[in-house]
């Protein structure tokens, strides 16, 4: 129960963190991403709206769950950070592969060769998922911890 809560809180905070970085850094500061792109598909718009809303909700609810874990003295940092990496990597991979490429919502950057950006984006996402998985598995308590070595 507590382990699952640590993961849930971490995943939500991770999804929210990536959504937040995406919006502030890539949309607002760098102006690499576009609000709307001529090739944006309808399904891309729906997906963007859903994940934009979910991103905000994820960060707010993830942090309230985090505060709840702390006041109950049941926060497990390794597991929580594992969750953050899983959420962040999972969402970034979805954004990079499905939203940018398949739904063509917008590209990472314009007027440059986008391939290195795409590769970096998705490799970082995969690394976060890998590290998150390791942390989550290794932070399992009791019996499970001895099984996976």
């Amino acid at each position, binding site marked *: 129960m507590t382990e699952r809560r640590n993961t849930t809180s971490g995943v939500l905070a991770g999804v929210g963190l990536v959504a937040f970085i995406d919006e502030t850094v890539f949309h607002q500061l760098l102006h690499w991403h576009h609000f709307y792109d001529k090739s944006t598909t309808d399904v891309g718009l729906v997906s963007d*709206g*859903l994940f934009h809303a*979910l991103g905000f909700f994820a960060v707010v609810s993830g942090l309230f769950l985090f505060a*709840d874990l702390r006041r*109950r*003295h049941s926060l497990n940092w390794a597991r929580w950070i594992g969750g953050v990496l899983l959420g962040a990597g999972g969402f970034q991979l979805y954004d990079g592969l499905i939203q940018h490429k398949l739904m063509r919502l917008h590209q990472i950057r314009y007027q440059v060769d986008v391939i290195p950006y795409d590769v970096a984006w998705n490799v970082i996402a995969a690394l976060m998922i890998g590290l998150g998985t390791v942390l989550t598995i290794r932070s399992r308590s009791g019996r499970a911890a001895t099984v996976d070595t």
Partner: protein
Amino acid sequence: MIPEHLGGGPGLLETLGPLLALIGIAIYLGLALRGRQPGTRRRCGLWVAGSLAAVAAISGPLATAAETSYVAHMGGHVLLGMLAPLLLVLAAPVTLLLRTLPVSTARQLSHLLGSRPIRVLTEPVVAAVLSVGGLWVLYTTGLYSAMHHHRGLHLLVHVHLFIAGYLFTAAVISVDPMPHRRSFLHRSVVLVLALAAHDILAKHLYVHPPDGVLAPAAETGAMIMYYGGDVIDVAIMVVLGAGWYRVTRPRFRRPIRGAGPTLA
């Protein structure tokens, strides 16, 4: 730009709106200051601020500009349909009424709140459809341009925008007693879907604005709608989360069974 807009003197909305807001402020302050409680000053501030936000949207320079400018209209829409309802809901007017009215009147009010129409209207799904669904109808049909030619329609659209916004906010954050309060999960899901539908509409309007709105205004207006909606809805999420945090507080000082060992 809208070629021809509402002419003549100030309409019903511009004169009656501020008057209603003033009456509302007078009643709220009168009742609240009679029997002071912790937080009375904060709630009075919220009520006054919410009333002013609504008035700013329907009369004065912003409202005048909104008759011809789509960008000003969108700014007013965020004030009237989102910010004003949030501030007013946080002032918990129903709680104030139930506490200060004579017992028999308070009982009648509480009976009214439990009635079927109110139960239906305060179901988050219904309130969300009325609120965001109403926006889809307003901006994707001819209603937006028709509204600028008929005073009655103009009044109706604004009253709907405000009431639907209030119902939605009240149904989701439930500061006041609700006849049938839904779970936090239910309210959260509805809130996320409503915000998503709002954001999708904003981006849709970025390229497909209502008739007569030119591209630059359409783009700025869409961004005001998109980001303005985000700000208010994140505030609603924080209020909702804080409510959950308060309700789920641990009741016992000793650690709960099974919760201890994870922290070494």
